[in-house]
């Protein structure tokens, strides 16, 4: 079969690899009908995340048809069913899964010792996302082995097109959880940094969850236009001060809720801290550029909530924790507990409350995948979201 494989920084290739096989009774094999390039795949593409090995198959947003089911998964899945695969591999049985904390499943990371050493304790296994999270082959491929498939799946209603269902595996629930964990009140201003795909879903989630006003921050004109279409007031940080504008929009008190949909690769702005991050990262003395996190802590209203769905990978420097502590901020973060939200979000799509396909700007073949990584990363051709059809 064909698959996209990581070979190093900015080096993704579409190559021929052996077809996956059932390795465990709880496995299933799916034939991928659609997959997507996620913003967090760009952290791998730029080699910001440690733990990748040459030849790894990438991709963690994918869906398709079940073509083979292991003996222990047969009660839950049938050949021919269409499923979306959540990017977090879950057992459904451990203490964390039972609490709904699926992204920190205690069972599915087969490289648990590495994760224990890196993070203190293991988190869930992930598809196509470094050997820290299991080194499982990803979904930008023609076929994928889904481990723990009896629990790791979202069934799709008949007739729901791929374009509406695909993002249930990651970016839609990620934006949704980013907003939900803010506990949005009808009096709240919610400020969202980053108008990439997760940011776009966070904007719409905050609107649906009833925020008084949603403010979106970015610099790319077409992303800001899409954010406005979803109901956000926008701030172009190239043209105006984020802090001043947010204070202006909130009577000087700052937004009650702040959502970081940017993560470790914050854009280099002309602020002193952003330049500091860039210099330190260039000298390999810092892994992440946490400009957004600093700005959120600074501008957030006291007793407010900082929600972080954006991915961070390592050590962060110069975090104003004194401000965070004295302002009494609440921090909520983490990879997404996809299966906690999936059934509810499927129903919202079915009812027409939201159509996730709005975010797709580019559709291409798997063979065009390497080129699309570059187009997406460079934000060329007004690219916001790429769907690949194997």
């Amino acid at each position, binding site marked *: 079969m064909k698959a996209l494989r990581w070979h190093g920084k*900015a080096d993704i290739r579409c190559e021929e690899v052996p077809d996956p096989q059932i390795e465990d009774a709880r496995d299933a094999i799916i034939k991928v009908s659609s997959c997507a390039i996620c913003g967090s795949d760009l952290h791998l593409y730029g080699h910001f995340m440690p733990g990748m090995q040459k030849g790894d198959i990438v991709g963690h947003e994918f869906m398709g048809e079940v073509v083979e089911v292991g003996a222990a998964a047969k009660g839950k899945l049938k050949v021919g069913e269409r499923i979306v695969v959540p990017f977090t591999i879950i057992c459904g049985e451990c203490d964390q899964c039972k*609490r*709904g904390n699926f992204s920190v499943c205690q069972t599915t990371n087969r490289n648990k010792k590495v994760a224990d050493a890196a993070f203190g304790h293991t988190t869930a296994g992930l598809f196509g996302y470094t050997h820290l999270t299991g080194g499982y082959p990803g979904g930008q491929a023609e076929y994928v082995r889904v481990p723990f498939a009896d629990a790791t799946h979202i069934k799709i209603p008949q007739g729901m097109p791929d374009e509406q269902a695909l993002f249930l595996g990651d970016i839609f629930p990620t934006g949704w959880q980013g907003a*939900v*964990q803010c*506990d949005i*009140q*009808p009096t709240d201003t919610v400020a969202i940094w980053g108008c990439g795909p997760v940011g*776009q879903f966070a904007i*719409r*989630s905050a*609107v*649906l*969850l*009833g*925020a008084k006003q949603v403010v979106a921050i970015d*610099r*790319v*004109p*077409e992303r800001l*236009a*899409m954010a*406005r*279409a*979803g*109901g956000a007031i926008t701030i172009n940080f*190239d043209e105006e001060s984020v802090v001043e504008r947010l204070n202006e929009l909130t009577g000087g008190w700052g937004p009650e809720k702040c959502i970081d949909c940017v993560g470790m690769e914050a854009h*280099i*702005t*002309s602020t002193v801290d*952003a*330049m*500091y991050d*860039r*210099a330190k990262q*260039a*000298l390999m003395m810092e892994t992440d550029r946490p400009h957004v996190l600093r700005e959120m802590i600074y501008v957030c209203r006291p007793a407010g*909530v900082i929600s972080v769905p954006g991915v961070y990978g390592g050590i962060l420097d110069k975090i104003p924790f004194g401000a965070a502590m004295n302002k009494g901020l*609440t921090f*909520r973060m983490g990879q997404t507990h996809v299966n906690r939200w999936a059934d*509810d979000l499927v129903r919202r799509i079915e009812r*027409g*409350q*939201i*159509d*996730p396909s*709005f*975010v797709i*700007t580019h559709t*291409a073949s798997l063979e*065009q995948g390497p*080129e699309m990584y570059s*187009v997406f*990363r*460079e*934000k*060329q*051709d*007004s690219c*916001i979201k790429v769907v690949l059809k194997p």
Partner: protein
Amino acid sequence: MRYETGRRRGQPDSATDTLARGLGVFSIALGIAEVAAPRALARWLGMRGQERLIQAYGVREIATGIGILASRDPTPWIWGRVAGDALDLATLATGIEQENPKQANVGIAMAAVAGVTALDLYCAKALSGESPTPLPPLRDYSDRSGLPRAPEAMRGAARRDFQVPPDMRAELPMPRL
């Protein structure tokens, strides 16, 4: 399918960006060497008495390196390196004289500076060729709401049948006076 890939977003492309950062790191490393060991360098070049000048050039290199790494647009700093290279070459040229027993070392140093100058020039020209400001959007996404009605009409639609799970609540009920 053809993609619009020729236009830049007011940012260096990754290859030029990497080169510029590499030159920034090189600048700082060379600067530290010049500031820390001016005597050894002057001795190797047969240019004793120029120690202070070498240290001053070192400070210039460090400042330029920091400028390249820290600035959002490194273009003027790279052009600054090109000017510095010219100064270095002119200074080294004074060491090419019959009485200097280390003439050969000066020649090696000049060849190295000339090589770096070529890289600096290439990088500066590539950066100068890029658009300094973000380009206007190629496509209009102002109709991509994803919502069935205007956002104002959809505000709070999910509150009717959704409750924030207890472990994600942050708010107490609004106090009523």
